[in-house]
């Protein structure tokens, strides 16, 4: 078996296992009070972390680039109560335009 297939199998088994732990072991059951209240805060914490990493990280280090313009445009669109679909499109268009007009 080539390296590629070992990586495919290893990554798949690990990911399937990680994703399944909660739903398989705890599916349909109520979480203990304390864990439930912590889990409620998981959404804002992880979503905020995702906004940060997807905006200013290139996977290895901080990277400030045209995505910032897109996310700023998205924030303005949200402020104007635009629907989510439009917010996403605005971000992509603003980023693409910035890249086209000021090629880095």
């Amino acid at each position, binding site marked *: 078996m080539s390296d590629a297939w070992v990586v495919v199998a290893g990554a798949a088994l690990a990911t399937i296992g990680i994703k399944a732990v909660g739903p398989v072991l705890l599916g349909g059951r109520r979480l203990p009070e304390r864990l439930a209240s912590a889990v409620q*805060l998981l959404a804002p914490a992880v979503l905020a972390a995702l906004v940060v990493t997807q905006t200013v990280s290139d996977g290895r280090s901080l990277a400030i680039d045209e995505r910032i313009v897109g996310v700023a445009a998205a924030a303005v669109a949200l402020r104007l109560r635009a629907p989510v679909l439009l917010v996403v499109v605005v*971000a992509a268009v603003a980023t693409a335009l910035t890249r086209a007009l000021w090629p880095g």
Partner: protein
Amino acid sequence: MPEPSPFRDGARAVAAVGIAVFGFGVSFGLLARSAGMGWLAPIVMSATTFAGSSQFAAASVLDAGGTVAAAIAAAVLLNARYGPIGISVAPSMEGGVWSRLVRAQLIVDETWAVSARGDGGFDVAKLTGAGLTLYAAWVVGTIVGVVFGSALGDPSTLGLDAAFPALFLALLIPHLRSRRAVLAALIGAAIALALIPIAPPGVPIVAAALGTLVGVRRR
């Protein structure tokens, strides 16, 4: 007027980001081929792992001449956040063990975020609709990338990389109703920002998740 369907709502909620997912599926297919993974292995990986960033990480490690163990470790680190995320969905996910095991695979950041109800619960039908939509976009995108990759451009030219943070920002805002939630978001963002330059990819988000859990226990 068709009757309301959470499944269809979920598919609609990720429609725009589905285009971005497709675009990145294409670039994954392209990168994986150039990393020497052949044409079938990248497609099987997208169909079985279904977690974009971890697949990119594993393929880039191989591309850079890294070991098999390092490639798998990169994928595991990037997907570690799905442990706590899966636990948050668990109480809302009913049905038999096998059905839960299969539906759990549709949990990715985007589907988890759009199906959050705001009270800590999750709409699993919505998650399933969103998940199958993105799964199709990701796998078909990978196939297109492996087959036609070099003929298509870089999705970044179209600004598709900014679609993801924009979606997460849009989904974050409705959660910020209580002071505790705002505080959790600020702590999560600060931990991620601090760790980006020093920690391997994936760790900033896991740390943000764990940091919140610890922070809440102390209060």
